[in-house]
């Protein structure tokens, strides 16, 4: 039988390189990241209005953003930088003050009886608010909750929240709930 000539493999590397370069160019390596939030469920259309009990004034932490990106928290103008501390103080209520939210003693597995805050953060923005400002405010509010959880975790379990086991995490989440409600936007302050 006649010997078949060998296929030259010298160009193999070149072909592979070409493919490699194609994939290098087409690849996006950047990991998408962002603020994760869950929207509230749409209420059923034929729902009766107002079957929930009204929320007490002291339990609501109102955050308003107007069309000029000004921030008003609990009735006073504030810088975004100060929002985190204010929100933490609201959620913690260290002195059991009359103006800060009530707490409710709840039994949580792993933790025992814990004073859980009834506070709700209510965020309302204007149609004209800039998205960047809105995200900055959202970020501060999420950061406040995250910091509280971290502090609580290191106090109780001696490690950061991220290092806790899943049971511990859910216990902490129950002890320090993240209740950020977003009202339907409306035009605040003047006409556009």
């Amino acid at each position: 039988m006649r010997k078949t000539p060998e296929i030259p493999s010298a160009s193999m590397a070149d072909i592979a390189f070409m493919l490699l370069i194609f994939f290098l160019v087409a690849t996006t390596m950047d990991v998408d990241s962002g603020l994760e939030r869950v929207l509230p469920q749409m209420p059923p259309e034929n729902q009766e209005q107002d079957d929930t009990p009204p929320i007490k004034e002291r339990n609501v932490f109102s955050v308003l953003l107007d069309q000029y990106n000004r921030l008003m928290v609990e009735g006073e103008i504030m810088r975004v930088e100060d929002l985190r501390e204010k929100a933490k103080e609201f959620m913690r209520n260290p002195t059991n003050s009359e103006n800060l939210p009530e707490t409710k003693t709840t039994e949580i597995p792993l933790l025992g009886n814990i004073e859980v805050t009834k506070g709700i953060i209510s965020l309302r923005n204007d149609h004209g608010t800039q998205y960047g400002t809105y995200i900055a405010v959202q970020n501060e509010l999420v950061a406040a909750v995250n910091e509280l959880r971290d502090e609580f975790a290191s106090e109780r379990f001696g490690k950061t929240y991220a290092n806790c086991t899943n049971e511990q995490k859910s216990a902490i989440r129950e002890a320090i709930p993240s209740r950020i409600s977003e009202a339907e936007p409306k035009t605040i302050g003047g006409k556009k």
Partner: protein
Amino acid sequence: MSKFRKSNAKEVPAVSTASLPDIVFMLLFFFMVTTTMREVTLKVRTTLPTATELSKLEKKSLVSYVYVGPPQKQYTKMFGTEPRIQLNDQFAKVSDIPDFILAERAARDEAEIPFMVTSLKVDEFTKMQIVGEIKQELRKAAALHINYSSRKKIEVK
């Protein structure tokens, strides 16, 4: 002793390139596996806002993207400079979002639908009105899990 010594011992032998294709193939396979193709050409400019409390989008195949921002230069004649929504490869209206979400759902496995995330890539300077409308549409479509795409802010303490 001279038996083992090569006659031209002074010359350094050339480095063998026989394994080069294998190495390149290895790299190639790595990139082929890790790659996700760019699926859309962006028609809007999105400069993402910065934030610190980021969480990563774990499964890219389960993410649907909504882009909002001012149209890129070559489209400003037709679409103006006001922020617009882009779904897939084209400009869209707010009312197109429920259909888009349904189409995205239909393209996935039924078991994976509860884990789907909508990533909002919105330009920093967009007004909230359009974002609020999108959020309402997403609520109507019951796509409640969203992610405000943002860049990592370097915190100065």
